[in-house]
């Protein structure tokens, strides 16, 4: 059960990472370094 919850959280976070990396920056004035694999 725990593994399923962690799996769901990780999948959701990876999906959000893909969405977030599509934007040149976020609402704040700081840009977190985008991982090489998500740069496009």
């Amino acid at each position, binding site marked *: 059960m725990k593994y399923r919850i962690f799996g769901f959280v990780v999948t959701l976070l990876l999906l959000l990472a893909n969405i977030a990396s599509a934007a040149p920056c976020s609402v704040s004035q700081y840009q977190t370094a985008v*991982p090489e694999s998500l740069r496009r």
Partner: protein
Amino acid sequence: MENMSYLPFSRRCAVFLATRTGLDHEKEIILAYIIEVLVINLLNICLALLLGYSLGVLPGTVACLVTAFFFRHTAGGAHSNSPWRCGLVTMTVFPIIALLGSYLSYLRQPYIDLIAAASVLICLLKLLQSAPVDSPAAPIISPLRRKKLKIASLMVLLAVVLVLAFLRQSPWPYAQQVQLCLALTVLWISLMLSSYGHRILAWIDGIAIKKERAGRR
């Protein structure tokens, strides 16, 4: 393998989640990235809303944050080197813009229209000239993506113009205040797209570095 240059809390959370689910190092880096993005942005937004609420300009602060969110996601802009200095800028700038909007809302409608029209025109010129402005931490590699982001940023400006026109006719008591908040946020976004915006944030970064060095001595 690339180095993880993320804050300790995001690295720790990423390592924990990756260990529990058996992910590789590459996915662990992606997790650290998104955890940091979510935490920093949520913290900045909550603090800005809290400050806006305590100053009595919550609707204006919300309007500023929503406008900035859409523009920053499409047009990009200048960045600070530190998440903490960035937090200070983000949490203070938008409530201050909202406060300024609330003071200026006592102006007559033609003056508000003039401010809105000038802001939109300046932003249009900056978008056509510079958008999207990327950073070394998140470079835009594909020319097609660059073109799409430019078009998207122009669409956001068009949406802002439509909202401004709607608010002009609206009987909502906060309409004029929100109208000015949108116009002033558009001006702030234009500044962040320009070289002056980059210089301002570099100057803010410089102050903190000097203080840190002085503290170490």
